């Protein structure tokens, strides 16, 4: 078994490799951590997120599962109550719908009802890419709405590693969403002692005139929009929430108070979304600081089409985000 889990200088692993790195370090430290999911042992998961870990830690700690989402989450929940710290890999978050009772009605409530923490990580790939309506649901608001669950939505390799390590030291269920369009991006990561706390947003790009608050792949799109707007003389700050629950309301409030011109972006249909929550709470707390209404950019209220142009048109783009920023700049 390899013990070389240190990160080499200047190494720029992918988003998926960053997950592997964090999991390896925590599995070495905690024998109660195991991974259960489909196609993990040989393939390493559909996004290479656990590639090589079965060979390194053994098939007892990386288990191939039948496609039984309810049993997968139940297996995680029961073993977590017993004393393990499982990572249940649901592959696509869309498949969590087959385990929604286990997640929302059971795992999230056990600590409150039975005074017993459930240290469980549910990892899944999320976000919108090609693949049609059954692989592109944005379910963040379902989970964030549920007391007892935390929700991580990293957009960089650094944050993937830092957040999964925090999740694996946490006592409670964490939904860990990795955007499918970020799987191959590269970036620096840090070593064994680097943790990203939940509930702490990061400033991706500083700005002077307005702020875009976002998470996941939308951070990338928002950043592109912000760069384009620089050329037009509009200086936009971009904030990456990194976790949706706990939500960094301090950072949101500070940004609203500083700029008064606020755009919130994600890929979920606008109605009942996280962007609605952010806009509402930010407005309640900072109404006097706002120069005008917070503008939200999200997806159409429709299932995602398999047609690439239709799919792209349904979700935020550089153009739609730029237009939203220009709208708040007119206040």
């Amino acid at each position, binding site marked *: 078994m390899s013990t070389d889990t240190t990160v080499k200088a200047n190494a720029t692993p992918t988003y998926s490799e960053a997950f592997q790195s964090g999991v390896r370090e925590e599995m070495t430290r905690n024998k109660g951590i195991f991974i259960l999911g489909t196609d993990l042992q040989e393939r390493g998961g559909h996004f290479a997120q656990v590639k090589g870990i079965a060979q390194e830690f053994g098939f007892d700690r990386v288990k191939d599962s039948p496609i039984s989402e309810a049993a997968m989450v139940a297996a995680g929940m029961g073993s977590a109550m017993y004393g393990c710290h499982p990572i249940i890999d649901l592959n696509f978050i869309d498949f969590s719908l087959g385990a929604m009772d286990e997640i929302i009605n059971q795992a999230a409530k056990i600590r409150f009802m*039975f005074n017993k923490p459930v240290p469980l990580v549910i990892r899944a790939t999320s976000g919108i890419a090609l693949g049609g309506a059954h692989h592109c649901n944005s379910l963040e608001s379902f989970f964030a709405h549920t007391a007892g669950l935390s929700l991580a939505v990293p957009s960089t390799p650094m944050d993937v590693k830092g957040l999964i390590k925090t999740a694996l030291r946490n006592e409670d269920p964490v939904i860990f969403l990795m955007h499918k369009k970020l799987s191959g991006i590269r970036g620096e990561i840090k070593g064994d002692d680097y943790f990203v706390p939940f509930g702490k947003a990061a400033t991706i790009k500083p700005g002077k005139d307005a702020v875009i608050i976002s998470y996941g792949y939308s951070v990338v799109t928002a950043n592109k929009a912000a760069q384009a707007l620089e050329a037009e003389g509009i200086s936009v700050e971009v904030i990456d929430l990194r976790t949706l629950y706990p939500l960094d309301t301090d950072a949101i409030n500070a940004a609203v108070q500083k700029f008064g011109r606020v755009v919130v972006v994600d890929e979920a249909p606008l109605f009942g979304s996280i962007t609605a929550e952010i806009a509402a709470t930010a407005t309640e707390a900072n109404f006097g600081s706002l120069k005008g209404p917070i503008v939200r950019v999200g997806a159409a209220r429709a299932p995602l089409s398999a047609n690439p142009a239709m799919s792209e048109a349904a979700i935020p783009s550089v153009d739609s985000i730029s237009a939203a920023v220009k709208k708040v700049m007119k206040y």
Partner: protein
Amino acid sequence: MSTLDKEKSLAALRQMMVIRDFEETADKLCLRGKVPGGMHNSSGQEAAAVGVMSALAPDDVIATTHRSHHHTLAKGFTPKSVMAELFAKSTGVSGGRGGSMHLAGVERGHFGGNGIVGAGVGIAMGAALGIQVLKDKKVSVGFVGDGGMNTGRTWEAINMAVIYKLPFIIICDNNQYAVETFVGRVTGGGDLAKRASGFGLPSFNINGQDVEEVYKYTAEARERALAGEGPTFINAVTYRYYGHNVGEKGQYRTQEEIAEWRTSKDPIDYFTGVVLERKFATQQEIDDMRASVRTEIDEAVAFAESSPEPAISTITQGVDSGKLGIQL
């Protein structure tokens, strides 16, 4: 392993009496509004619970259903702490946060009753996986009703237990009615053990009114589980004397049917006869046992009545650790 010795027989008989008296008493209190949200009476099903628990070690794990007073008492939780939970008082097994359907004591191997049909089987299967991963010598038992035999996740859990050879026992606490629907009307193939055997595990239909038969099959299943031979399915056929929930006036079964089970198949009457026949106790000793049970249940009610309510200020406490935002 096929019969209970004197000590275990008397303990089993007394435990069944405790459950019966507890349920009859709680039912009346529930009708008087003392049990918020109502309850599910397990009178008639005592042998299936006590038989299983007689075969388990104290730190074996169970997870169960919405009808779980009998399992919880048989697992060794006191009538006081269970009655207090029915009253949703702070001294209850779940601190008043669970109520009748959510009795638990995770540190003592009780992973909870459950308001959702079939959910307990999955949790117990997960506990069995935890036992296997941490290489402990224990088993986990998942209770499910006949209604839960027709929800898909029960079979997902059974399949997973089979492929991983988990130290797991599935007990179908089969009282023959899914709320008001007779099991035979909604169960394709009819034979539950035959259905389970298709998943590749030893599967048995047994008499759930005979505490010794339940004990024997559970003990053998436990031996197989500890030997690494994987899970067992046991369909313990039993009967509930009361409605699905307290106060129910259902027309879905006849009074004659209920009377027949009460008079000719009652698990306590039956096992009292066995105990007398084997001269494990005299009639006087059995009468004394019943009187001591009566006192114990009276004390449980008094305890529940006099216990404090949980503090309103705690309504959002214990949802999560609150530590996620702290730099580690």
